């Protein structure tokens, strides 16, 4: 009698564990699918803010179309791949959903007015994470310097060894730049300052040159 009850309990518990496991896997799968679903290019350009502005500009760049047909979609550059940074970025993106509803940047005029702010925000993010999303594909260790132009070789070696990161030089490669103050004519009040656009290289005390 007693043993029978025990056996029944044991069955119930093991069934519960299996059910919890299956449910857990299912939930995780759904969660992950939803995350991936919002990482698609189609999802990003489903709002006018993206489709009429940044997407259109990006279509003229090498990250959209190139000789070998490898495309970096929005999320490849703007959403981290690692779990925790991805979660943080996705949570921050809830603010972007809110602004999509408000229509804060849904016309080229509105977008251009906000462009300096938005661009600087993204530059700061990339600078802070050492251009992690660039490096998902562009690994400096794999650079074939013999295939690069002579100007690129020099700048890459110098920049990378002095602790510069991709975004320090490669701004405005996938989207249009905001106005940058280059000291010519009448500067726009919203123009990006030269210090922000070309951040100074902190001199590292490193091994002497060979």
């Amino acid at each position, binding site marked *: 009698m007693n043993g029978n009850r025990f056996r029944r309990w044991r069955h119930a518990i093991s069934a519960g564990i299996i059910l919890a496991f299956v449910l857990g896997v299912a939930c995780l799968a759904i969660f992950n699918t939803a995350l991936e679903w919002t990482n698609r290019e189609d999802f990003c350009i489903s709002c006018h803010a993206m489709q009429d502005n940044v997407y259109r500009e990006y279509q003229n*760049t*090498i990250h959209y179309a190139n000789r070998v047909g490898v495309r970096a979609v929005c999320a490849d550059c703007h959403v981290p791949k690692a779990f925790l940074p991805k979660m943080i970025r996705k949570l921050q993106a809830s603010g972007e959903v809110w602004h999509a509803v408000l229509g804060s940047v849904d016309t080229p005029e509105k977008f251009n007015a906000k462009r300096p702010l938005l661009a600087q925000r993204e530059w700061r993010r990339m600078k802070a994470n050492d251009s992690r999303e660039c490096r998902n594909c562009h690994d400096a260790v794999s650079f074939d310097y013999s295939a690069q*132009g*002579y*100007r690129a070789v*020099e700048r890459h070696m110098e920049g990378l060894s002095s602790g510069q990161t991709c975004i320090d030089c490669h701004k*405005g*490669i996938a989207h*249009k*730049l*905001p*106005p*940058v103050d*280059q*000291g*010519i*004519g009448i500067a726009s009040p919203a123009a990006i300052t*030269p210090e922000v656009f*070309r951040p100074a290289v902190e001199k590292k005390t490193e091994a002497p040159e060979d």
Partner: protein
Amino acid sequence: MKIRLLTAFPAAMLAGLLLSCATSIAANDDSGGLATLRGAPIPTSTSSGGDALKKAIESAPLDRDFTQQPPLVSHAVDDYPVTRNFNKCLDCHSWENYRKEKATKVSQSHFQAADGQELPNVSPRRYFCLQCHVPQVDARPLIANTYQRPTGAR
């Protein structure tokens, strides 16, 4: 009835063809909504030369062929924006940056405004670098000629 149909069909075809030709010509004349900053229309039909698609010769700048020739650009300029917002050329060739970038600096003659006034930096009228300075390519003369470099430039 049959004969009338037979003549009406080609006539309609011809009319349709003429109409499509007319609209396509009109579309060519139209600037497509493009305008300069001062509101003048921009013609969309521009002559295209094959040499523009050639790869720039990335070497020391080629010698100049005539006096006052603007020096050639000795590198590719693909995807270098020269827009209202930003001038990529000046990102390296400005007096502020040329030392860091080991680039040729803009001639000081380019600091002069249209009225002769000396400005503290490149004059806005010299902003569009590529109007005069073009990437050097292996371009053959369009018309065979006997032109010689001036003796002092040989």
